């Protein structure tokens, strides 16, 4: 298999926290490995504080990794030195932000971000390209919308502008950090559909970061589940949703309200929350909440291990699919 | 909320109204009290060291006294004071004074010649106390019974003023115990004077009558209040409202502001000294006497006096003799040489080779007659005066630009000669015109540019003039003295080292409702400004309640 579009190797990011003399370190992201293929939509799922936004910012080069490496088309990002290279990468991997109300500069017309992106990365393209991009994300008529100010648009329209800005780079991978979570339910689907369409039409890959497992299932090819800075499970979306291996994934799925499914009040009485991972000790980070925890969980950090075709989970007790040997 | 506030205000008003009434009644009761209103720009430090230039005006004259009183308004007429007599000898190189018997310090101890001797030796030992630099001319001071003999290095007639009239005598029995008399505060001064310092706060000093004063039956004033005023305004208001009886300051619009307020309000501003344009004689253009003369012609001193000074400070004349105070010294022929004459100013400049281009005269080298003139921003009357002068000079083709400075910067520039023109004047001259002329013309009062000159800021130096000044010191004969002063007047007129513009006056306002015995033009027994010492003590000594016969 050829080199994937993007690959991380032991990606780790720590933050110093607390007071001046304390040596407290928050392990936001620890030893995370994943790959994103060309034209693939990968969902990164987890609760707030699990480290998924940190990964987005590591990929966008907002943060530098504490250790580990990100390879984009086989090239390590740490080798980027010059502004030109930085711009080239920025253009290949743009980002769409969570809050459409804060991701567009209110002082400018909505076309501002697109124009700037074009100016920086695709010189010589003018208004026609701006309008094409706006049309591409379903903002019609583009000519009229380009001249509006952000406060004149609805949330859904703004988020479409966010996608148009990303598209302006003619990107290879768009990092979409919770792009629909602030939007009304009735509007969400439209944007999820837009992502699928863009993948089809433009061949762009997406890293779709979300806490909404259902929406991940809706569009993603594969899913990564994060808990407390660790990647705890990964695999093809449908497979993971139907047969979750990691107890956390199971908990997460059971918590999703689904009006179409029968009521199961009894199955979730968990009151725990994902911990802030400050100066962590060895051991499974989900162990305190885990109904299946064994002694080993307290002392040995489980590593991702294969539990089925393309299925990985970091759990001591999770069992491999019956009849399907670990690959 | 609103109601509460209104209520508070009402209560407040009621309280103050009663307080106000109370203070008024107490005021009318104290008829033998005098309140002085004289803006000093400071609060009292409650030090009374008579050798401290900063506070001596608060003790010298009232608490401490001099050997002989010299009246500056009567060309130096002397009155025996702590000395009952004095005599010059040894071709005016030796002065002998006899100390008055029966004088007591306010603590009851008698005044002796020993105290006088001690006082002068104190000055010798402590240069910082010798504000009049007595020991720069003195050789020796000795005592012989109740006589004190001053031996001078040379003839020293004019120095009599400093030795006998300007040196306060302090009690040996107190001052001999003081370790450092220079930094001695003297919070409870013991003197021979008519008043005792009764209490002092930063805001007001209260003097009370010295019951055992040596001039029998005096003083008749029981109490003197000397409040500290940090600005002119409130001091003027005190006078206008009649709360203060004796004022010593500039009051603008005095007729409407003060005199019209009461028939008992009067003022008299006796001139004592000149306010002049000092001309830097080392300036390449200004050292040409023609330019200076042209300026002297071009200034309408009368108008400056009227507009800038409300007419309070009369116009000067170029001789430097202050009239009418020293009119007897004035050479009438010289007095009008530089009367206002703009035509003559222009002619003078043209004759000296200056060319007028546009509105301005230029030197033959092509430099404009454009000068900066220093002034003090805080002296509004001076600022206004210079504005008038500016217009008058502009009319003949000389441009001056005022530079209004803070007094410190201004002084530093004046002393160091860093100016072209400067509107300036000595606060006082002396009991005769000689003193001011010496300040302005004597080369020993000058210094190189960059070094502080004491009073000769324009840097005038002429050996012939110096000789005249020194000659004066050796004669006590009035006729000879007058002759020398007339020659100095000629120097002033011929060389125009400075241009006297207006005459500085003693600011003096007085209220005759309850008090009589004030200094008046008819009876100028002392300089009447409260800030002139020791004269203010003499004034207080002569005040009487009107009810007294």
């Amino acid at each position: 298999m050829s080199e994937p579009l993007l690959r991380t190797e032991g990606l780790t990011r720590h933050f110093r926290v607390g007071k001046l003399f304390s040596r407290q370190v928050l392990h936001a992201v620890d030893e995370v490995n994943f790959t994103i293929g060309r034209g693939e939509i990968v969902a990164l799922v987890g609760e707030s504080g699990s480290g998924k936004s940190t990964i987005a910012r590591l990929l966008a080069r907002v943060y530098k990794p504490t250790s580990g490496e990100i390879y984009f088309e086989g090239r390590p990002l740490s080798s980027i030195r010059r502004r030109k290279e930085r711009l080239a990468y920025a253009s290949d991997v743009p980002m769409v932000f969570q809050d459409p109300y804060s991701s567009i500069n209110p002082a400018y017309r909505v076309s501002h971000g697109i124009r700037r992106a074009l100016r920086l990365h695709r010189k010589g393209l003018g208004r026609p390209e701006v309008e094409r991009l706006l049309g591409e994300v379903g903002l019609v008529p583009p000519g009229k919308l380009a001249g509006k100010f952000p406060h004149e648009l609805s949330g859904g329209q703004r988020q479409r502008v966010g996608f148009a800005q990303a598209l302006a780079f003619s990107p290879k991978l768009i990092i979409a950090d919770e792009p629909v979570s602030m939007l009304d339910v009735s509007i969400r689907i439209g944007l999820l559909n837009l992502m699928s369409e863009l993948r089809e039409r433009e061949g762009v890959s997406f890293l779709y970061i979300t806490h909404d497992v259902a929406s991940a299932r809706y569009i993603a090819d594969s899913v990564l589940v994060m808990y407390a800075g660790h990647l705890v499970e990964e695999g093809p979306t449908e497979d993971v949703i139907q047969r979750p291996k990691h107890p956390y994934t199971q908990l997460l799925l059971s918590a999703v309200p689904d009006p179409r499914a029968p009521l199961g009040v009894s199955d979730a009485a968990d009151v725990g929350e994902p911990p802030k991972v400050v100066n962590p000790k060895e051991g499974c980070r989900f162990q305190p909440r885990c109904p299946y925890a064994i002694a080993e969980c307290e002392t040995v950090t489980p590593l991702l291990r294969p539990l089925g075709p393309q299925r990985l989970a970091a759990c001591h007790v999770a069992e491999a699919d019956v009849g399907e040997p670990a690959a | 909320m609103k109601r509460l506030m209104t209520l508070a205000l009402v209560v407040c008003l009621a309280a103050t109204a009663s307080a106000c009434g109370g203070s008024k009644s107490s005021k009318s009761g104290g008829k033998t009290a005098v309140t002085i209103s004289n803006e000093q720009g400071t609060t009292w430090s409650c030090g009374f060291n008579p050798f401290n230039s900063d506070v001596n005006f608060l003790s010298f004259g009232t608490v401490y006294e001099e050997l002989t009183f010299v009246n500056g308004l009567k060309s130096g007429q002397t009155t025996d004071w702590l000395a009952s007599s004095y005599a010059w000898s040894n071709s005016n190189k030796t002065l002998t004074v006899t100390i008055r018997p029966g004088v007591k310090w306010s603590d009851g101890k008698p005044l002796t010649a020993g105290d006088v001797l001690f006082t002068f030796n104190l000055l010798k030992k402590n240069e910082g106390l010798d504000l009049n630099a007595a020991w720069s001319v003195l050789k020796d001071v000795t005592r012989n019974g109740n006589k004190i003999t001053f031996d001078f290095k040379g003839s020293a007639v004019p120095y009599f003023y400093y030795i006998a009239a300007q040196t306060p005598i302090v009690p040996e029995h107190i001052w001999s115990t003081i370790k450092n008399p220079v930094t001695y505060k003297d919070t409870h001064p013991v003197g021979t004077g008519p008043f005792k310092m009764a209490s002092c706060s930063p805001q007001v000093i209260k003097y009370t009558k010295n019951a055992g004063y040596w001039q029998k039956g005096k003083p008749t004033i029981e109490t003197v209040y000397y409040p500290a005023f940090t600005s002119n305004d409130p001091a003027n208001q005190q006078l206008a409202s009649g709360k203060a009886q004796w004022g010593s300051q500039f009051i603008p619009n005095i007729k409407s502001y003060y005199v019209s307020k009461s028939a008992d309000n009067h003022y008299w501003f006796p001139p004592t000294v000149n306010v002049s344009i000092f001309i830097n004689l080392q300036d390449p253009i200004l050292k040409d006497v023609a330019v200076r003369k042209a300026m002297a012609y071009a200034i309408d001193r009368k108008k400056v006096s009227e507009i800038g000074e409300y007419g309070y400070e009369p116009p000067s004349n170029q001789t430097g003799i202050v009239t009418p105070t020293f009119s007897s010294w004035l050479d009438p022929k010289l007095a009008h040489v530089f009367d206002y004459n703009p035509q003559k100013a222009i002619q003078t400049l043209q004759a000296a080779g200056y060319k007028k281009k546009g509105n301005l005269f230029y030197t033959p080298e092509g430099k404009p007659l454009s000068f900066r003139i220093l002034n003090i921003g805080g002296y509004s009357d001076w600022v206004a005066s210079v504005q008038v002068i500016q217009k008058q000079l502009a009319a003949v083709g000389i441009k001056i630009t005022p530079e209004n400075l803070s007094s410190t910067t201004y002084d530093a520039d004046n002393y160091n000669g860093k100016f072209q023109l400067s509107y300036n004047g000595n606060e006082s001259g002396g009991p005769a015109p000689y003193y001011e002329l010496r300040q302005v013309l004597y080369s020993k009062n000058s210094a190189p540019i960059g070094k502080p000159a004491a009073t000769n800021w324009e840097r005038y130096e002429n050996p012939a003039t110096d000789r005249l000044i020194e000659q004066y010191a050796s004669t006590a004969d009035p006729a000879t003295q007058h002759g020398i002063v007339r020659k100095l007047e000629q120097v002033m007129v011929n060389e125009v080292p400075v241009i006297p513009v207006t005459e500085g006056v003693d600011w003096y306002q007085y209220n005759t409702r309850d008090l009589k015995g004030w200094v008046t033009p008819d009876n100028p027994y002392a300089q009447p400004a409260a800030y002139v010492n020791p004269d203010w003590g003499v004034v207080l000594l002569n005040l009487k309640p009107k009810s007294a016969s």
Partner: protein
Amino acid sequence: MTLPSAAEAVVEPLEITRRPGADLWRAVAGNRKAVAGVLLLAFFLVLAIFPGQIAPYSGTAEDFGRGLGPSSAHWFGTTAYGQDVLSQLISGTRQSIIIAFAVGGLATAIAVLVGVSAAYLGGVADGVLSLITDVILVIPIFPLIIVIAAYERNSGLFTLVVVLGALGWSYGARQLRSQTLSLRSRDFLEAARVRGERRFYVIVFEIIPTMTSLIVASFLGAALYAVLFAAGLQFIGLGDPNSQSWGTMLYWAENNEALGAGMVYWAIMPGVCVALLGAAFALLNYAFDEISNPALRLRRLERKAAQELEPAPAVAAAPDSEKILEVRGLSVAYASDDGPVVAVDNVDLDLRRGEFLGIVGESGCGKSTLLYAIARLLGAPLAGEITGGQVLFKGRNMVSMTERELRAIRWREYSVVMQSAMNALNPVLTVEAQMRDALKAHSDLSKREIEKRSKEVLRLVSIDPVHLHSYPHQLSGGMRQRAMIAMALLFTPDLIIMDEPTSALDVVAQRSLMVQIKELQERLGFAVIFVTHDMSLVSHFSDRLLVMYAAQVAEFGKTRQLFDKPLHPYTQGLLEAFPSIRGENMRLVGIPGHPPDLLRPPAGCRFAARCPHAHERCAIAPPLYDVEGDLVRCVLYEHDREAVAAR
């Protein structure tokens, strides 16, 4: 299209979602203080620019007679030097205006540079720059200026401007810094960085343009301070007494005893000018505060609307003891700049004892407003007013009750749980103090009893009672939310009104809290009105569900029935919009378009524009139809059923 609704525009925290500076003129023109400020400033600007044309005489001419009173030739008399006061005032305007604008400009430029750079660069640069800012702020400026003015030769206009400007920027810098700090986390800046913009570009072209109003405020503040300080300096004689300015006039007035000598105008008028110019800046600043912070503006509904309020019936006819709450024809309107916005339009609902009623709808549909109208909690920031209808709580009409009457039943009989406990709990009081406040307001419990009860309710929501002494910020998000629910249970009320109490939580915590609420409800028997935008959330918990769309009830019926057989196209669309987690993963379409603007709602069916079944009948506003106990507002059911409500 504007924001989801005008109602929400009111609660927006900062100007950030609207374009700063946009509609500035409109905003200024609509603000009386701003208009006064602008007019005053314009007046002085004209005087400053054309003094020669306006002034009757030259300001320096001295030939009019000294100290004259006002006359037709000299409106404000003459000075002690015989100058015309009016002409002096006019020619003195220029200097004050120059000082104001030059100092304002200089100080603002420095403030922007320092404040924005400090916040944006962060780290050491921020440390150093903020330190300098604070030091300059602390060092007493006026004394320093006095010192400098006293010793600077020719302390003329230039010196004055430089010194005032160089020392007067710190306050603005501080504010700009904190504003930039709050902007720093804004995604559009990160977007700019991610796209590869240079730092300089980000500061100058991305940050600064968004802070127009603060920069204007900083300018106005500095200008005001410059005018006052300069006048003060000139007044005490530290300016150039030859210059023509108001401060100099005051200096001359003071030195010539203008007031004492009766030349009153000479002393008063320059001060009036300084005060008026200062007032112009102060008013503009005041107005700008209001313009940039909409919360400060007080909008009033037309009184007419309130007069339509129906008189409350004495007692509701035969109150149904089972019905704890009956809402009849409730309408709520907000005042907005463009007119009243009806956020709740003629809503009826009822609630039985122990029932769990869900209210769902998109943001801006009026569901929260309905909730707060029922609880009688409308007021800032939701400055809405009930314009009609009744809220019968246990038979009493809450709409006509006074605050005092309401206070008696609040919390004892019904309590409220809000969306974010972080905001709903007072940050400066402990949980215990806040519980005590509630208990003391409605009971005479002793100290010990209060503590006992507080611990009890915390245990009910499985919080360790040690947290009683914690401040809200010390608790985790889930705990805060549960603490708030505990607080609502203090008196075991009959009704708890919940406004999206779980939406700030993660999905797992959300689930567990919902389960807990349901358990408590079953155990304690209180009724719940639960508002949420996520209808799947309440699918298993609520007995009945009310779907709101554009301020109206769209559908109201039993939860299961509604999920199984949604009637209203909007409900159908909503259900279609949820990707399923367990069912078939099919392609969904959602609901196209967006809700109507409530300021100008469409005349007919409000959903018509987005409705796949729309036809011409939808041009007439449909009433509610009763379809097998399920109420639905759609013309599709017109032939089957009879309308239950007029519209």
